[in-house]
Each structure stands twice: as structure tokens, then as C-alpha cells.
């Protein structure tokens, strides 16, 4: 594979990628972060994880511009020395890439810097396919999977073909399409807390479609959506494993699925 | 009654305040005048940009697709006979109401003496109305009709069955071409009271979103297409 951006064409060193791990992966499911690191390293990147908190999306979507702006400045400062910034989430990458510029409108000191920064930010699968030109991964997953297109990745970053293309190269994996795969799962960040009954109705329809797909595994690229769908399926007692797409692509799909019990501790 | 000057002025002043303008800016006025004078066409779908014969075929296909029915006749002389056939195959009374339009008056009604032809606007009691279209639009199978002294609008809406004579030479590709013809016909800019664009018979989907034909307007729309494209 080749790193095809102009900034890298000049040098032959591997691209330096800052992993924006996202709050949810950091706290709830670190294994997704390690899967992302593996995929990036396998693709020839030099990965590091600078100290970070949150991209600011919860504040942004709650109308708190001051906090959003402060977190954006911190994120930019932490990551701008990297060639690329990659997140295993369309939602967080979309927040940075499409919304950070709005926060700095009319500030000449910032706007150029923010623009350069945002140009380096990518969702994981889109970075692998669109930037690095990765066409296949070395992984095996025995199962029938279906894929939910998380809204921000799909609509803000046009992530749709990339995960499917990579999944097609996973040995043993059969992909079956999900009806209405591009409809919201009802997570919506703070929405699911503020209007839980509406959120539940939406994820209920999603669960019906997932079951109807006949898949034994549900994949997506955003942990928030995955937790929502996993939580619903588990409450219904359904036997569908729910995983982040990175876990499967990295060949790390053999650990406990989201919300499944951890294996008994050894020794 | 007209609007009190104050409300008119209040609204316009409020618009201007929000826009940060005074209305006396010459460039703004020029831009508006230029747009009105040039009335740019915008994006016109390629769909109907076809040679005349294919354009006519597209019109027919689109009209049928919108649930209109259609007879393509070689000449106007065939219209009365085709109407008689249409009415009798549908068990309708051999009676119709039409406007005084000279193009309809000139049809050889004596060739179908069984049809009882009345002239005037509809009061809702006549099952069949006959009109003459100004144009047909191939892009969507739409008929364009004008109101006027000889063309009562009620004929388009009150009868259960609406029959419309359309000359093939008047089938144009798109709405924009139709408007160019309208502008040519009314150079002073004073349009007829109503310009009706009609695409198929009346319908409603308001009960469980199931499409049903024959809501308030005609239950059937029949096009009598006459002649060859120009």
C-alpha cells in the first residue's frame, strides 16, 4: 500500500498517525483502540496516542459553544503535529472534520490552522481505503455479519463502501445487508438520555431489521451506536454478537462481544 | 379593502431592516430587473430534449404513466368520431359541454351527429367536458390550458370525464418552452386569469396513503392528440 497524500509523497518515512481513540472506546471498550492500532500499523503507519479527552461533540450538540471551543483547541494542539489523525468513529471524526471549522469562523488566526488540521482527520476505515489504498486485510472471522451505517460517518464523511470493501477480504466472513442500514439506530448521543422512550422505539425497529437479516454478528463503526443496539438486542435476549468493525478487520473478533461476559480470569 | 399602509410598510421595513438595506440601492434594483427581464431557464432535464417524433412519444408515455388515456388521431376531422367512440365504449351519455373556442367550434361535429354538444361553463351537472389545450409538455405528460372567454375553467374540474384536444405540433419538450410560447402570445405580460397545468385525472392518497383516482376533479382524463409533430 502507499500513502498517497502530497505531504507524504515527499518523504519516504511511514506516515505518523495520531489515534484519536474517542471517549467511549477509551473508557468502555479499549480493545477497539488496539484493533485500530493494529490495522494502522499493519498498513505501515507509525501510530501514537497523545493524551486526550473528548472532541467536544456532547457540548457542541448541547449548545455549549464555550466548552466545545475549548475542547477543540485542546484536541488541535494535541494532534496537529501528526501527519494524520484517525478515529475509530465516524461520529467523532465527523465532529472534527465538518464542525470544527464552524467554531473558528471569522478568526484569521485560527481558520487556516483549523483547516489544515481538519484535512488530516479521518475515520478509520475511510483512512485505510481512501488514503492508504488498503484493499484487503489479513483476518479471519467465521460468521454471517451485517453492517449498520452509523449516521455521522455515512452523511458527514461518506463512509459506506470502505468498511464493506475491507470486510469482503476477511476469510470465513459472509456479509448480509441490513434493511434500512442507513437509518438511525436512535442513539443520538445525549438524545438517548433525554428522550429514552423515543430512542428505544427507534432502536427497536433497528433490532427487528437486524434479526430479519439472519446475521449472527452485527458490526458498525461507532461504539455509541453499537452499545445502543447491543443493549437492545441483549435486553430482548437475542443471540447476536455485536462488535466494532475494527475488531473483526484486525483479526481480533474472538474476544467477548460488546456486553458479553468477560472470560473467567486466569490464574 | 386594501392593506393599511402601516402593515405594508411595517412588513417591508422589517424585511429591509433584517437584510440591512434601504431599497434605494441601485445595484440591488438592477439585479432584480435583470433577472425578471432575462428570466433564466435554470436546469432543464435532458429527458425531453428529443427530436419531435420521439418527444411526442415521450409525451404519450408520460401521459399514460400519469393515468391519462389517449387517442392519437391523424387529423382534427377525426375528433368527433373518436369522442363518440370514447363515450360509447364507456357507456357514457353521448352528450358533452365545451367552451366556445373556435378550434373546437371548427371540428366537424356533423360527422358524429349522435353527440349532443353544449357550449358554456359547467355547473357540475354535466358528466363530460371538452377543452382545447394550449400545449402539452413531454417531460411529464402535462396539459396546459388557459381560462378565457371561450375556455371556461369549470370544464376542467367539474365534469367526471375531461376530454382535451391537443395538437401534436403544440407538444413541447418542457415547461420553459411552453412559457416562451405563453410570453409570445401575451406580449403585454397580462396572462389569462388561470393557467392550468394538468397531469392525469384527479386523485387522493389521504386514506392510508393508498392512491385512488377520482377525488374532487375528473375521474378520467382523455387526451385527443391530433396530427403529427411539427
Amino acid at each position, binding site marked *: 500500500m502507499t500513502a498517497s497524500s502530497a505531504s507524504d509523497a515527499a518523504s519516504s518515512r511511514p506516515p505518523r498517525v495520531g489515534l484519536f481513540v474517542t471517549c467511549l472506546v477509551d473508557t*468502555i471498550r479499549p*480493545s477497539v*483502540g488496539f484493533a485500530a492500532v*493494529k490495522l494502522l500499523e499493519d498498513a505501515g503507519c507509525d501510530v501514537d496516542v497523545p493524551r486526550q*479527552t*473528548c472532541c*467536544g461533540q456532547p457540548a*457542541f450538540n*448541547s*449548545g*455549549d459553544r464555550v466548552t466545545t471551543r475549548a475542547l477543540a483547541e485542546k484536541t488541535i494542539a494535541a494532534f496537529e503535529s501528526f501527519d494524520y489523525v484517525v478515529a475509530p468513529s465516524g461520529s467523532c471524526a465527523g465532529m472534527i472534520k465538518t464542525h470544527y471549522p464552524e467554531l473558528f469562523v471569522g478568526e484569521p488566526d485560527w481558520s487556516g490552522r483549523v483547516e489544515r488540521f481538519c484535512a488530516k482527520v479521518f475515520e478509520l476505515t475511510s483512512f485505510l481505503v481512501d488514503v492508504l489504498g488498503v484493499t484487503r486485510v489479513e483476518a479471519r472471522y467465521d460468521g454471517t455479519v451485517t453492517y449498520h451505517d452509523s*449516521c455521522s460517518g455515512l452523511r458527514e464523511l461518506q463512509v459506506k463502501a470502505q468498511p464493506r470493501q475491507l470486510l469482503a477480504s476477511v476469510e470465513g466472513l459472509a456479509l448480509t445487508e441490513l434493511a434500512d442500514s442507513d437509518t*438511525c439506530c436512535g442513539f*443520538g448521543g*445525549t*438524545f438517548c438520555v433525554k*428522550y*429514552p*422512550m423515543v*430512542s428505544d422505539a427507534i*432502536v427497536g*425497529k433497528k433490532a427487528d431489521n437486524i434479526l430479519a437479516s439472519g446475521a449472527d454478528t452485527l458490526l458498525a463503526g461507532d461504539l455509541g451506536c453499537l452499545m445502543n443496539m447491543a*443493549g437492545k438486542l441483549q435486553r430482548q435476549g437475542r443471540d447476536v454478537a455485536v462488535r466494532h468493525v475494527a475488531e473483526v478487520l484486525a483479526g*481480533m473478533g474472538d474476544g467477548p462481544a*460488546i*456486553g458479553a*461476559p*468477560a472470560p473467567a480470569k486466569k490464574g | *379593502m386594501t*392593506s393599511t399602509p402601516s402593515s*405594508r410598510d411595517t412588513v*417591508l421595513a*422589517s*424585511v429591509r*431592516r433584517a*437584510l440591512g438595506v434601504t431599497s434605494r440601492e441601485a445595484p*440591488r434594483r438592477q439585479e*432584480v430587473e435583470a433577472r425578471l427581464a432575462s*428570466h433564466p431557464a435554470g*436546469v432543464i432535464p435532458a*429527458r425531453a430534449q428529443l427530436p419531435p417524433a420521439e418527444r411526442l412519444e415521450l409525451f404519450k408515455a408520460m401521459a399514460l404513466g*400519469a393515468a391519462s388515456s389517449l387517442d392519437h388521431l391523424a387529423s382534427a376531422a377525426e375528433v368527433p368520431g373518436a369522442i363518440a367512440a370514447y363515450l360509447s365504449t364507456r357507456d357514457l351519455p353521448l352528450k358533452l359541454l365545451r367552451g366556445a373556442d373556435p378550434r373546437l367550434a371548427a371540428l366537424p361535429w356533423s360527422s358524429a351527429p349522435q353527440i349532443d354538444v353544449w357550449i358554456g*361553463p359547467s355547473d*357540475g351537472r354535466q358528466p363530460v367536458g371538452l377543452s382545447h389545450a394550449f400545449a402539452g409538455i413531454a417531460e*411529464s405528460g402535462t396539459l396546459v390550458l388557459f381560462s*378565457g372567454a371561450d375556455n371556461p*375553467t369549470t370544464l376542467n374540474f367539474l365534469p367526471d370525464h375531461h376530454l382535451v384536444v391537443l395538437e401534436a405540433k403544440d407538444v413541447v419538450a418542457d415547461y420553459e418552452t411552453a*412559457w416562451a410560447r405563453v410570453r409570445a402570445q401575451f406580449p403585454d*405580460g397580462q*396572462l389569462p*386569469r*388561470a*393557467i392550468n397545468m394538468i397531469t392525469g385525472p384527479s*386523485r387522493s392518497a*389521504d386514506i*392510508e*396513503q393508498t392512491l*385512488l383516482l377520482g*377525488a*374532487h376533479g375528473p375521474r378520467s382524463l382523455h387526451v385527443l392528440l391530433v396530427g403529427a409533430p411539427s
Partner: protein
Amino acid sequence: MSVAITSPEFKQNATEALADPQLQAALAKAGPGFVGKRRDAIAKLPEFDALRDSVRDIKNHTLAHLDLYLERFEEKVREAGGQVHFAVDAAEAREIITGICQRLDARTVTKSKSMVSEEIGINDHLAAAGITPVETDLGEYIIQIRGESPSHIIAPAIHLNKDQVEADFRRVHTDLPADRDLVEPTALLAEARGELRQRFLAADVGLTGANVLVAETGAAVIVTNEGNADLTQTLPKAHIVLASIEKLVPTLEDAHQLLRVLARSASGQDMSVYTTFACGPRRALDPDGPGEFHVVLLDNGRSAMLGGTLKEMLRCIRCGACMNHCPVYQSVGGHAYGWVYPGPMGSVLTPAMIGIDKGANLPNASTFCGRCEEVCPVRIPLPKLLRHWRQQEFERHLTPAPQRYGLKLWAFLARNGWLYRPATRLAMRALSLFGRDKGRFASMPLAGGWTATRDFPAPEGDTFQAQWRARKAAGTTSRSPAP
């Protein structure tokens, strides 16, 4: 009927809507149809996206010159023998319309579907003046006889099923034989047609909305599939067009750019059945048509929107695509929104019209999935405008206290990474310890809304960042998660 505001009770409304099996069945039946029909229609028009850009630009141009186009429109209507009335607010519009009706000694007024007429609550006002308003759009007629308000801007009775309509017709049409057969929907349609035909012919005044106003010619463009707007405007003594000021476009050609995206976005038709350019009263020699032609131009807060972020909302052509594609609307239906305009467009407009203090629920009740913006034919960035309202709410300290404090605490932590990382680490390790066996929680403090219906996954253990640093310190790479 004029709509009582229940937007502040959105949660309650939504809960009731979710528990209403009949409504849920109606929504499940109608929703996918709209989505599919739109998709099929635009698939057949490769220029659709270019037309969207074109209409967006036309609307932006018109709004930027709205004062001049309003003046031109007024002049042209006058030239054609019609009258133009500007109304600053709903009350003034009601007075103007009622005044015209009273001058003509009107007893009944036929109406074709108009959301602006719902906005100003004209029906109650007319009734109070002893004038009977008769809704003639089939869906509007059904909800009028039920004493309801529309639940969708183009499909007002979308929340009802056929059996309900049948029951209402039997209740109201008492002059018809009680044993008549109304099993088929066509029988219901035929019955409504018969009832309303008499009303059309008897009406003294016809009141319509307008989908577009054309400045160049002074035309009001009115679109229907039923033909009811044409009977409404053609038969009575006077035709009153009630339209809001942002309905203007400059020219006839511009109108068709808009019409090409309107029907496709709304119902998946290439063109609605009846598109009528109404250009004034009956001419001297015309055998039919209204003797008077009035246009009531309503502002009602719109001019104020022109100057700010919400300006983009004024491009809206009321196609309904945003609600047809909205997961929230599709779950709770239109009445839950608690005022005239539902769905994403309503969630932007309603706070502007009834106040953010009363309308705050609506911009919050969105997942920001972005599907509305994706389908909007005039490219209104609806999520951005909803976020604008959340910002207003936050900045004016209207956000409910628990959310506000929660957000404050989180913001404090997130802005202070030296505190955030150890705090999240501690919390996750504790949660993991409790949840590890099951892998998830069936209930959780502070997340009761979630865990009432969904499990919550237990964290794996230490945070990613802590594990990463430990590995880096140990010189091991990052190939696999902690054992």
C-alpha cells in the same frame, strides 16, 4: 381548528404516541411508502441534485431581494385586478380574511389545504364570526370532522386508518343510508366527493394557500392532486390566497425549478396532477372564475428570521421529505410535536413562532442523524438550525438543571485532562469489576432511561489510554489488548 400548543409536553405526547397501537400501525404503513416513492422518482431524474442547487440559489437570491420582489408581486396583482394585503401577524391575517368574508356576506368558505391557515388558526376565527369553514382536501376534511389538526404537512390524516375514517363518515354524514357499504376506500372517497361537491358549489368564498408566488406575473401557484384547490378558487365569488412572504420566486421559470423538486420530494410524482397559476379575478368576458382575487401576505415573524441564522429555513417549500425520513417523526407522528409544523422543519420553525421557552423540546428531540438535510430539496441544514436552538437554550439558561449540571461536570473534567484520565480510569475499573461477570448492566444509576429498555455494556477494565501508556513504558507494542 386552531392548534393548542402542547410542545412543552413533547415527552408526554411522545410517550402516549408510542403506546398508541393504531397510530403506530398507521405510521408503519405510510412511512416506507414515502421514502420509496421519492427514491424511485429521483432515480429517474439525473438532474435532481442540480435542480436542488438551482432552487436553493433561486430562494437565496429571492430572500436577499425580498422587499423588491414583494413590491413587484403586489404591483402585478393590482394590474391584474386583484388586491394584496400585508399582514404583520396571525391576528391581522385573520382580521383581513374575516373582513373580506363579512363584506361579501359569506356563509361558507371552502378551503384547500394550507398550513399557513393552520398557523393563523383561521377556522376557529371564521366560525366565531358565524362563517362556516369547509376543508376540502380529503385528509383535511377528515381531520376537520374529527376536530383534530393535521399531523403531517402534506398528508394531514396520515395518523388515521380507514376504519376510523369510515366511523367518522357514518357519524357525520347522517343524511346517507345507515346500511351503505363503505368497506372499500373508493367508497369513502366517493362519499367525500359527493358531500364536498355540494359545498364547493354553495361556497361564497374560497381560501387557498400558495406553493409559490411569482413576482414577475403576480401569479399564485397552487398545487394539488385532488383538484380541490381549483374548485375552491374557481366557483365562489372571491378567491383569497393566504401565503407567507417567503413563498416568492422571481419568474415563471424559477417556479418550475421549484416544482420539479417539490412533487418528487413530497409524493414521488414527477408533477402533481393540478398545478394552477392563478393570476387575478375573472376577466371581463370570462364565463367563470372568482369575481374578486385577494392575496394575504403573512409575515408573522419571518422577516425577523431573514437577518439571522434561521434565514435558511425560509427556503423551505413544505414538501414534507424531512419528516418522511425522520426517525423521531416516524416513531411518534406529527401531533406529538405539539403545534402546527411537525418533524425537523417544525422543530426549527416552531420555536421561532411560539418561543424557545415553549418550543425547547423540539430541537432537542433529534438524534442529529442528518437524514433530513440529506433529503431536503432546498438543502436546508436542518441539524445545524436545530443546534442553533440548543445553543440559544443553553445560553439563555433554559436547559433543564440536571442536564446542565451533568454537562458542567463533564465539561470540567474533559477540559482538565489531568483529572479526566484518572477519573475515568477509576470509574471504568470500578464499573468493570461490577459488570464483568455478566458483561453488562441491566440497571444503572443516572442511566435509568437507557437501562429501562436496554442493557448497558460493562467496560472492559482499564482505559485505553492507561493501557497504552503502560505498554509504552514497558516497551511492548500495542498488538493486543490486555490479557
